[in-house]
């Protein structure tokens, strides 16, 4: 191999290594800044204190209210996206004519390409006023409206990943089911969905992970009040919103307020890292079941 070829390979490898540097950079930044934070605040306070008030005079550093806010909005999102997305997947895969499927799929994909700040507008200005007519006590900022809107955003992700999983079920299973006289509904939900369950679970976990890390929708429409509650009608604050809130203010770099966003960031990173890797594990483990 000539020297020129070696140099080119080396350059390409250096480009590929940028991704490793990115991961290393993320871990280093999160760990180094939050280690300073954890020298001032005991880990037990961070994990078990039920109040998060770093920006007030009476400071508490319990991450729980931000975690419950994050989980509440994500849970609402998945309660919208899973039934709708899975129904779309089953319908397009088993019921709909091919031409309908070909037209509808790209149009649904548009939902996934809309910038999240635009979804934030819908949540705040369209969905919240609409929901307030149903629930008159609902606050202007709440978990329900951004949750629903995040769910709508995630629908294409769930439906497209679930559809791939349903499509991958061997035809023999489908034919056997129709052969013994099952209806399309029975074939879909008693044979195909169970057979494709690992793929569907993966789509749900990735959907939750996406919702947990989503920032703009909740920053615009969920409010900025860290609150340990599962009431979807009152203002809450998610981990991501807190980071935005601090970034918008004049927080002195190096102060403990500044370090809290890295501590919140590490909690967010850990949460999505676990979710993503559980989904990789399920995908790997069950991938070859029918091959």
């Amino acid at each position, binding site marked *: *191999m000539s020297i020129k070829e070696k140099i080119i390979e080396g350059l390409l490898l250096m480009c590929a290594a*940028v991704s490793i540097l990115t991961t290393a950079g993320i871990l280093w930044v999160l760990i180094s800044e939050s280690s300073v934070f954890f020298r001032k605040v005991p880990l037990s306070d961070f994990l078990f204190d039920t109040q998060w008030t770093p920006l007030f005079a009476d400071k508490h550093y319990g991450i729980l209210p931000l975690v419950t806010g994050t989980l509440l909005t994500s849970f609402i999102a998945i309660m919208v996206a899973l039934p709708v997305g899975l129904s779309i997947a089953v319908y397009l895969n088993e019921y709909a004519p091919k031409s309908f499927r070909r037209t509808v799929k790209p149009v649904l994909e548009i939902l996934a390409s809309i910038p999240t700040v635009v979804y934030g507008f819908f949540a705040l200005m369209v969905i919240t006023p609409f929901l307030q007519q149903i629930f008159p006590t609902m606050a202007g900022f709440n978990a329900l409206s951004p949750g629903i809107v995040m769910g709508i955003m995630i629908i294409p992700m769930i439906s497209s990943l679930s559809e791939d999983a349903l499509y991958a079920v061997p035809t023999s299973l489908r034919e056997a089911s129709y052969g013994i006289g099952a*209806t399309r509904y029975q074939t879909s939900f008693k044979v195909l969905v169970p057979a494709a369950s690992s793929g569907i679970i993966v789509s749900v976990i990735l959907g939750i992970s996406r919702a947990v890390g989503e*920032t703009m929708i909740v920053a615009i429409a969920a409010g900025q009040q860290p609150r340990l509650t599962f009431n979807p009608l009152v203002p809450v604050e998610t981990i991501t919103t807190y980071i935005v809130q601090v970034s918008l203010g004049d927080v002195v770099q190096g102060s403990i307020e500044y370090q809290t966003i890295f501590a919140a960031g590490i909690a967010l*990173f850990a949460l999505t890292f676990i979710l993503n890797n559980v989904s990789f594990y399920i995908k790997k483990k069950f991938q070859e079941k029918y091959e």
Partner: protein
Amino acid sequence: MSRRIDYNRIQDNLFRIVGIGCTLFGLLMLGFFLYSVISEGWPRLSAQFFTSLPSRKPEEAGILIPLFGTIWVMVLTSLISIPLGVASGIYLEEYGKKNRLASLIEINITNLAGVPSIIYGLLALEIFVRILGLGKSLLSGSLTLALLILPIIIVATREALKAVPKTIREASYALGATKWQTTWFQILPASAGGIVTGVILAISRAIGETAPLIVIGAMLYITTLPSSPMDDFSVLPIQIFNWLSRPQKGFIINATAAIIVLLAITFILNGIAIYLRNRWQKKVKW
């Protein structure tokens, strides 16, 4: 027995309705969203809106500066992320297929693709803004977005390279071409359509991003157009977020008008990508 069959049939037809309903729900929501934005923001889209600086009076404010910022960010992010991403994709697919380093990079990229965008903002705040001293500049913002979309470009490049059949490679090697000559003169041109599609989709993702830019501090009141990559900047999504957080109705209308502009750019980019993908798939039949 026949009642059981009737029940099954009704159940089957009921789900057909549920399925159509859910599909329509998605489509209707999309239509409803677009309608609510266009009906409110369309009248505001005048020449004045495109050419005005920010203002405390909503009817005098415009998107000149964020629109320029978005174009700047688009160009800079492309310049940084395309060479890096395509080169990484080539290395992983053509060169380092079997070694351990390549598989480590691969796992790493899959994980990076799932990292929330706001975390990239924290990375950039510490590394680009503070340690490298780039400040809240266009360059900081573009570097951040470039890292964010790198996994998308790498994956798209690999998919496109994978689609090139072995015979092309073997024919090139048989003529005595080196590995790089094969890659540069045969494989890259053959996979260009797929790579370009992926790149455009990634760029369209980048210009819609808000959160990481807020974290690096790009939420500023700027009254001059950026003239170099080291200048402060604003982009459309940030301007929209800014206007949405004001109480006056006039600013909300401005936000919807800016949303129309942002959506138009996003949809045009996506449309070009889909067009190229279809053309490429039709043209290339190995």
